């Protein structure tokens, strides 16, 4: 009786995942593995080896890697500070931190465009105080900047959560057994926070790798990431077959990166994601 009820409860989600996850995925694979006449082919997937495609994949990997590393370096100390504050202060700090996430992703990135433009807010200020203007917009720096800004909270929160869960008595125990602050951090805090780091990396690296909006708005369509190439195949060139083929390649890279993180996570008895 009860089991039946639970089964019924799962029905809406089952329908959802069928309609919006499984069927689209099947379609991606169908388009990716066929040509315009509907004949089976690997050509779409293999087209990743074309210099223009391959280059866009490499740039995407490089920029998202750099963004992830910088996010991690910024987030860990911040998460440590947040987790050490008393509960009244840290709720406010977290709120301040999460606040930008409540605003639309597109709006935030457009705001950065306005800030970074050649005639934008930052350069106007620099000129008024007679400093040379900076050329940031439409460079890889601007894209990395946008990635870090948009994805930083996704790195901070999992690390913060995992740090909060560490029993303070463990740190006391380490000190009690003769470990100084640095040793306590390296031998207890850091290893225990690995699951948070792993899930933070996954939550930053994957969306950064696949983004096309950030590179579109801040890279000025001059720097093509693999996401932009796929987007253009679908929208400009209307070549769904090639777009799907490249999507499959990108999916492969995401799966590989998740496997790598899962291997690292083994020691941390991962609760990543």
């Amino acid at each position, binding site marked *: 009786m009860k089991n039946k009820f639970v089964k019924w409860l799962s029905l809406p989600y089952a329908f959802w995942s069928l309609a919006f996850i499984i069927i689209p995925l099947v379609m991606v694979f169908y388009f990716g593995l066929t040509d315009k006449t509907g004949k089976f082919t690997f050509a779409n997937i293999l087209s990743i080896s074309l210099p223009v495609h391959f280059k866009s994949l490499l740039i995407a990997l490089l920029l998202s890697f750099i963004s992830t590393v910088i996010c991690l370096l910024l987030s860990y100390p911040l998460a440590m500070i947040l987790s050490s504050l008393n509960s009244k202060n840290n709720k406010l700090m977290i709120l301040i931190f999460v606040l930008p996430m409540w605003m639309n992703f597109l709006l935030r990135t457009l705001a950065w465009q306005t800030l970074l433009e050649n005639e934008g807010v930052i350069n106007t200020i620099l000129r008024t105080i007679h400093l040379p203007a900076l050329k940031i917009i439409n460079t890889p720096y601007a894209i990395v900047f946008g990635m870090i800004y948009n994805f930083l909270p996704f790195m901070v929160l999992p690390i913060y959560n995992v740090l909060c869960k560490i*029993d303070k008595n463990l740190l*006391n*125990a*380490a*000190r009690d*057994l*003769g470990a*100084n602050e640095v040793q306590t951090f390296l031998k207890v805090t850091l*290893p225990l926070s690995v699951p948070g780091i792993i899930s933070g990396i996954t939550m930053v690296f994957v969306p950064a790798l696949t983004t096309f909006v950030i590179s579109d708005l801040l890279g000025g369509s001059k720097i093509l990431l693999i996401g932009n190439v796929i987007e253009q195949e679908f929208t400009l060139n209307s070549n769904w077959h090639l777009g799907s083929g490249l999507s499959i390649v990108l999916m492969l890279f995401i799966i590989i990166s998740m496997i790598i993180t899962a291997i690292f996570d083994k020691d941390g008895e991962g609760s990543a994601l």
Partner: protein
Amino acid sequence: MSNKLITLENISKSYDNHLVLDEMNLYIRENEFVTLLGPSGCGKTTTLRIIGGFENPDTGRVVFDGKDITKLPAYKRQLNTVFQKYALFTHMNIAENIAFGLKIKNKSKSYIDDKIKYALKLVNLEGYENRMPDSLSGGQQQRIAIARAIVNEPKVLLLDEPLGALDLKLRQDMQYELIRLKNELGITFIYVTHDQEEALTMSDTIVVMNQGYIQQIGTPEMIYNEPENAFVADFIGDSNIIDSIMIRDELVEILGAKFACVDTGFGENVHVDVVIRPEDIELVSPEEGTISGEVTSLIFKGVHYEMDVMANGFEWLVHSTKMFPVGEKVGIKVDPFNIQIMNKPASEDEEAVQIEE
């Protein structure tokens, strides 16, 4: 007597204007099993944390082995702590947990391996080296926590309610285990608990604390038989605490009846508190008793019967192997040396408090 190993001098500590310890003075001798006993919030855990170096006192000094260690950080102190909830490192196996302190001190691998073997044998968990803490029961985890502390050869082991999370049977077993360990290691144990039975079973010396003050220091027998004030009498075991008048030396008036006692030096016609343990009351026929009354309740407790006797307006708690049914008229008789006379509390802090649980 052996040397004083730890001395606390005028230690005060407050959190957010709430005074937890007030001008506390205490010394602990080498090779002693000292228990800090008291209800929650009495300052016993704070005292332990100050000795361990996890808290700094607002005033006062901590002297260890002749040296002032008040400002010394925890990791430089020659003592180790067994925490209430074990605090084992969940990302390390048992051997790595035990080796933690030794690795930090850069001991050789063979030395560490020997120590791990020795410690696991000492706590009866041989062969557990490669297990993870999560796969152990609470009692086993607690033994590992003890093993992890003692491999560092501390002069003092601090134990913060280490048996609090265990069930009754296991707790009793571990009490004997701890006494055995203490005797085998020959080091000082400072033990914090709110469980008076635990304290009576294990300690050489009990320090009874309440609201930041030490109420009494003494052997378990002294604390139980000769409580210095109503708080101690109430906290340690069951007792009848009665407002009385000391008429003269060796004579006390309890609820209007005169009882012979053995205490002297309180003065004449002085208000005092009298403590009579329930097992020290003899129920006799009404004519034979100093006071007579009526049994109002009767409960079988296994070893003895627990009875309430209403006599002269006071409900006496009586433990006896003889059974008297409810409604029976009985006389109450107490041997003079079983009447413990105490001065009235000088301050509120010594007042008996209602003990939760």
